[in-house]
Structures are given as structure tokens and as C-alpha cells.
């Protein structure tokens, strides 16, 4: 059974002008069908305003569909009474690390979710220890979040979600505000959770480099899914991606240009190693 499934999902919001009148309905997402398998690593790509964040918030029932249906682990997110169950099953990590840490001490922040679920104190301690060690932040448990780097703060935020034992984690542009080191840290933790713990990871981003390890990629534009497939399939359509204002990884672009110039190499090269291999294989 898919962990997340959407059928004809749509979300509209009303925008007011400066005089607070003439409301205009904006279709943030429309007619989205998707199905994400348990244990997979899925990336959703799109430039600003493509509706990818709106879609992410649907998965956590922070927003309810205005048309169509969204199921999380078989639960319809529109049902009010199962709201907390949905949010426990699908954890969410946001873009700004400062604006999602609630506790003044690292371990107290990680405990926030389990506390809300009403767990007994002893269980909270085991879960917090466990979650912090999974993201490699156990040594920082007594620190103030304000003294951590951006990447460390995001790892704490991920631990806060992991401590709720979710089936899947939705990362909504978790690296947008981080430096390259922080980005690497966060992505490593996400991949590790996916591979070792079998947690479904849904990564929402506009950095193409971050999606090469995904099992499946969705590309969004104007509120719709316009492309999908494995990273290799998606990256072989360089021109289409460029039309969507998405920049492909440098090596992919180089391979694409080489191919256009007549060099015989395969489509959809996504790592430098692959390009080296392909080029060496020519002779």
C-alpha cells in the first residue's frame, strides 16, 4: 500500500488586493495524482511558486484539499478526527531552522513532539536519546539551539520529527538557508534515515544536485506535476527542465552538450564518475 496517495488533488486560496476586496482565486495546485511507496526516497522539484510547498503541507494535513483527496497511510487527511494521527505519521521539517525549534535546550526541543503525543516521561527519554543519536546530535543535547550551526539546527529539527516515530518525513526545502556543509549534513541524515530505518523520505527542493539519490522524482510547475520518473529519466530531458527554469547539475549539462556535439555517450548522466566512465568507454 502506498504511504501517500493523492487523487485529483487541488488547492485554491483567495487573494485579497490592497483595498481588501475583489478576491481572486489562485490555484496553488491542481489535479495532482501521485502515489508514494513505503520506504522510498522521493524528490519533488520545482522553482519558486510551482506549488511544491503547498503540496508538502497537504501531506501533513496543515492544509486541507479544496478538491480531490489525499490519503496518508490510508487515512483521508480531510477527516478532522484523525488529524493528529496524520501529523504523527507524516512528520515535517521546514525551511527556516530558527522558526521551527521550540525548546530552549536541544533535548527539550526533540521532546516536544512526544510530549504532545502524551507519552510517559521514561518513553520520551528513550525516544529523544534514540532520535538524537540517529541524526548524530547526541553530544549536543544540553546545548542551546541558538549556538548551533544551520545544519546542526536542521538535524535537531529532523530529530524532533524522528522522535515521533513517523512513517514518512516530508522535508520542505530543508537546505535552502544552509551553507554547503550544512546542506551535505542534512542530506546525509535524510538518506541514512531512509536506508537504515526504512523511513519514507519526501524531499522538496529546487536544487537539482540533491535529487540524484532519489528513487523517484516529480517535477512541478504552475501547480501541476509536469514530469516524473527516476532521476536519470528526468535529467535526460535537459531542454524541458531548462524551460521550467530549473538548472540541471553541471555534469549532466556537460554530458548533454557533448552528446549534442556528436560524442556518443548515453542519456541522463548524473554523476562525474559516470561521465568519466562513459567518455573512457568511447575508445
Amino acid at each position: 500500500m502506498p504511504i501517500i496517495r493523492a487523487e485529483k488533488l487541488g488547492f485554491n486560496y483567495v487573494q485579497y488586493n490592497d483595498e481588501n476586496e475583489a478576491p481572486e482565486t489562485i490555484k496553488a495546485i491542481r489535479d495532482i495524482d501521485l502515489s508514494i511507496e513505503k520506504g522510498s526516497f522521493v524528490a519533488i522539484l520545482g522553482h519558486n511558486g510551482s506549488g511544491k510547498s503547498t503540496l508538502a503541507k497537504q501531506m501533513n494535513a496543515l492544509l486541507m484539499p479544496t478538491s480531490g483527496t489525499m490519503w496518508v497511510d490510508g487515512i483521508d487527511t480531510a477527516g478532522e478526527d484523525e488529524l493528529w494521527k496524520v501529523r504523527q505519521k507524516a512528520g515535517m521539517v521546514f525551511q527556516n531552522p530558527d522558526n521551527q525549534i521550540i525548546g530552549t535546550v536541544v533535548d527539550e526541543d526533540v521532546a516536544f513532539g512526544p510530549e504532545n503525543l502524551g507519552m510517559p516521561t521514561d518513553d520520551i527519554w528513550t525516544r529523544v536519546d534514540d532520535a538524537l543519536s540517529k541524526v548524530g546530535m547526541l553530544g549536543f543535547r544540553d546545548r542551546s539551539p541558538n549556538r548551533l550551526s544551520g545544519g546542526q539546527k536542521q538535524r535537531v529539527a529532523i530529530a524532533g520529527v524522528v522522535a515521533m516515530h513517523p512513517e514518512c518525513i516530508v522535508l520542505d526545502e530543508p537546505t535552502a538557508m544552509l551553507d554547503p556543509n550544512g546542506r551535505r549534513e542534512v542530506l546525509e541524515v535524510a538518506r541514512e534515515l531512509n536506508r537504515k530505518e526504512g523511513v519514507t523520505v519526501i524531499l522538496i527542493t529546487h536544487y537539482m544536485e540533491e535529487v540524484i539519490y532519489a528513487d523517484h522524482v516529480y517535477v512541478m510547475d504552475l501547480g501541476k506535476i509536469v514530469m516524473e520518473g527516476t532521476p536519470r529519466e528526468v535529467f535526460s530531458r535537459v531542454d524541458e527542465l531548462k524551460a521550467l527554469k530549473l538548472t540541471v547539475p553541471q555534469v549532466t549539462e556537460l554530458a548533454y552538450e557533448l552528446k549534442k556535439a556528436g560524442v556518443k555517450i548515453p542519456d541522463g548522466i548524473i554523476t562525474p564518475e559516470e561521465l568519466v566512465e562513459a567518455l573512457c568507454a568511447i575508445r
Partner: protein
Amino acid sequence: MGEITLGQYYPTNSILHRLDPRVKFLGTLVYIVALFLVRGPVGYAVCAAALISMIVLSKVPFRYVLKSLKPVVLIMAVTMLFNLLLTPGEVLWRFWIFKITEEGIRMAAKMGIRLVFLVSGSSIMTLTTTPNALTDAMERLFGFLKIIHVPVHEIAMMMSIALRFIPILTEETDKIKKAQIARGADFETGGFVKRMRAMIPLLVPLFVSAFRRANDLAMAMEARCYHGGAGRTQMKPLRYRKADYIAWAVVAAFLAVCICLSVTGW
């Protein structure tokens, strides 16, 4: 700009630091009440002894306690001056329209001692208790107000979130200030009105950003299943230990002694 120290917590490991914040909070209240109960020299001596033993127990250097007196020196001076000049009684010395009375001197001295003891006594509490522990203590102590629908948990949650965001917003103020200075804003010169007006380009972006942060945080809290205090458990619940019961006994004994002294007038 780094971390600003909130309140004035002095991190070290003493008996007072480990004590339950509820005991410290109520103990301080009892101490303040006692200060206004006692009237005679013996009473003041008892209060002084209590204060000094607390400072010693807290392992906080004495100058930190003195430092906490600095902001209230002016209030103290004014209070003492008024008491000195305006208390009626046997006139000792007359100067223009002012007269100093024997009662006035006594009153001013009493007031001064009380204020010094009061401020140092409460600073011992804030020096040994983190703001968060205090928030926790207040949530528990005022929990009974929930019966009359006071949102005790929500107020405590707001306080702890405010504490978490103070350093972030301070840093942001600094950033906006520098950005506006780079655009030619002038925060330094001019009179009071001009300087106040110069704050507008600082405050508007700060407020906008604070609202955005509040919105983000609310969403993050909801995503982590926050739905108010009902059914919520705690990772570090406050629990009384042996030392706390002993502390309660000490506080009670101190109060009893002060009441006796107050009745006898010693």
C-alpha cells in the same frame, strides 16, 4: 553579537541551583513578606543572616549579587530621601523648607535595608534558576487558576517561546540596523523626536519579520501535534526530592520566626 545572557543566571552547581524552582520561587516570596513583617533589630538581623547564608549556599560570587543592586540604586535613593524628609516627628535639623526628623532617619534606614535585602534576595533566585525553570515553576504553581479558565499552560508556553526568541530577534535587530545604516539611516544624531522617528525604519521590518516567524513557528508546532496543554506530558517534569522537602521546612521555620519577631516587635 552572540548569546545575550537572559535574566542573570549564573551557571554553577550548588544546592540552590539544584533545588526545585517552585521552592525557590515561593521561598523568595516568603522572604519578601518577612522583610515587611519584621520591625525590630533582631528581625533585621535574622533576615540578614538568612540572606548571607543563601548567598554562601548559592556559590554565586558576591559581586554578582551587588551588581543586581545597580539598576535600583536610583529608586532606593529617591525612596530614602522622601522618607528622610517627609516623616513627621521630632525635628533634629532644619534647612529652608526641609526638616529632618529622628523618625525620618530611622524610617529611611529601614527602607534602605529592606530594599537592599529585597533586591538581593530575589536576585539570588534569578541567579540560581534558569528563566525556563521559573516558567515551569509558575505553570505548576498557578495551575489551580485553570479552574477559573485562566490559560495557565498557554501563558507559560508563550513565556518560554518568548525566551527562546529574544536572542534571535536581538540578532535580527542588529542586522536590520546595520542594513539601514548602510542605506544612510542615522540612529545616532538629533534630538529625542528625531531619534525616535529614526527608529521607524528599524521597527517596521522587525515587526514584519517577527510576525512571519510567529506564523512559521505556529505551523511547525501544529505539524508536531501541538494542541494545547490537554493530554500533554513532560520530558522533565518537576519532582520534589528530599532536599526540596528540607528546604520547605527551612522556609516554614524562617517564616514562623519572623512572625514571632513581628508580634513581639523585637
